[in-house]
């Protein structure tokens, strides 16, 4: 439910970027000198920052942040996938390029 809400917010903010309603006028001028096309999009940038805060707060992909031991295990897994295990272990690279396109 929370994810759905955040995804909808992202989509809504993207749609709000296409502000055709302020297309042909500089009015109202914010602070008497900032045309609406600038002030609206400046506020849009602030709204984007707030949305990013909400994403970080409520939808942070913490499952990706594996502990060091698991990372080392992952590198071993990757190395095991290579046909030159010693090289791959040394480089941390999992590339098995023989028999591949």
């Amino acid at each position: 439910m929370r994810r759905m809400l955040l995804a909808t917010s992202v989509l809504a903010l993207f749609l709000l970027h296409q502000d055709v309603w302020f297309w042909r006028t500089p009015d109202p001028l914010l602070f008497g000198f900032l045309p609406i096309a600038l002030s609206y999009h400046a506020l849009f940038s602030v709204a984007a920052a707030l949305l990013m805060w909400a994403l970080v707060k409520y939808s942070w992909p913490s499952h990706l942040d594996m502990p060091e031991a698991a990372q080392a295990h992952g590198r071993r897994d990757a190395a095991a996938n290579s046909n030159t295990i010693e090289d791959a272990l040394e480089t941390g690279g999992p590339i098995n390029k023989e028999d591949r396109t």
Partner: protein
Amino acid sequence: MIPALFVFGYLAIVLYIGVFAFRRSKAREGAEDYFLAGRSLGPYVFLFSLFGTNMTAFSILGSSGHAFNNGVVTYGLMASCSALIIPLTIFLVGTRLWALGKRFGFMTPVQMFRDRWECSHIGTVIFVVQAALLVPYIIIGVMGGGTTLNAISGGKVPYWFGGALVAMVVMCYVFFGGMRGTAWVNTFQTILFLCFGAIAVIVIGSGMGGFKNAIEALRSSPSTAALLSRERISPLFFFSYSFIPLSSIAFPHIAIFCLTARKMEQFKRTVVFYPICILMLWLPCCFLGVVANRMTDVPQIQQKIEARRTLAAQGSQLSPGERDSLRSKMSADDVLLLLLDRYAPLWLAGLLGAGIMAAVMASDSQILALSTMFAEDVFAFYEGKARFGEAVQVHTGRIFVVLVTIVAYAIALKAPQSIFELAVQYAFSGYAALAPLLIAALFWKRSTKWGALASTVWTAAAVIAVAVFQGLVPAPAPGPPIVTWSVAGIDVLSRTPGGTAVLGFMPVVPMTVMSVLLIVVVSLLTAGPSGSTIVRYFPSKSEIKAA
């Protein structure tokens, strides 16, 4: 000349930071330390250097120049959509890239593609396309250094010397400092050019006696009133531009940069504060660019306004060559420098000039990214590392940095800047069309190497096709586009004054949509990677818990 002395001082500081980073990392000579700063960047260095890496000369000079000629639309067109899409892609894609890099030891996106899709030569094709799209950027960076130093010194520092000096400084701190030096320099530069925006607005605003009168004057003149709204731009064109920020995460220097964070926590501040950094830099530059239209007492600005007026009034009767000449006269990338020259005291103009130079010198991370890609995706992949060892791999990367800089400088001396400015435009569209590769690799189990190849080949072909089309059909005068292909009364392909339109959209839209379609359809028609690879990339919840 005094402002130029400030810039020389700034270049000396930047060089020192690079050498300091070299001394700091001397004990750790490994490839991961040189190319990725040992995956050890802290939160603030990561935020500021990632932002600085993404900002180029265009962010300060180009944005104000674009706003000078096109009005307030520039901010909504280029900045505010980036404020949403770039941090979103860092949040969704950057964090996953970081996690895979940390887990499997990847140092470039191509390494990840090769492993994820179990391919080798297809990875090389992706490398070639990515590298080809990156090179114009590096050349533009060298050119920007030469022209900016020339302008700041009032023509006393020749273009060739300015370009050579900037290229040499960048080369030295990238050569010695690697990613650590580049990140530290970028952090310093970002702080400098973020301060630049606020100071420039205050100084120029007070010099002009406030902005209210300037805006009122622009509004009351029929020739400038349109600059305060978006009436000259179509909503479809505006919508098209929101595809461009997708390119950011697909740029190799940004994707590689995502691998440098010490912890995933480092991404949090970057994601949240990125839109604010965009606001702080772009809003002042765009606004000042528009306001510069009031500076008709500055002869250079008057010439630009005259050229724009002539092109709008008589453009359709002029030859393509004459139109190009007027376009180059109305090119306004120096309006901020002219405003500073007019309103800022010499010492402040020098400091602000250093801020501008900070944004111009963005080619550092691109040179380093190209060197990392060569060292990892070519040298190490084709057995160089296995045969000669890791130390030789790092030396190779360093030599590559020197070679790239020399070649870029040689081309910058000979070739006209406009060619590479165009090439950079194509590069944005190209990288936006390559973004689906990253998304498919990270989020879609069923994606295959053949889908990735189809998408990459399509991107390369589309970029070349747009370049050839724009070369064959000269840009028309401001006004209606030249329709070159229409079907049943619908304009399919048109040449517009600013580029190309496909069904009214910028080319980036069909390029990206087709890239997505190709990767989906071709992947569904071909066999995917083995089950063991899928399990490694998409572990189940229980496996994550067990880990």
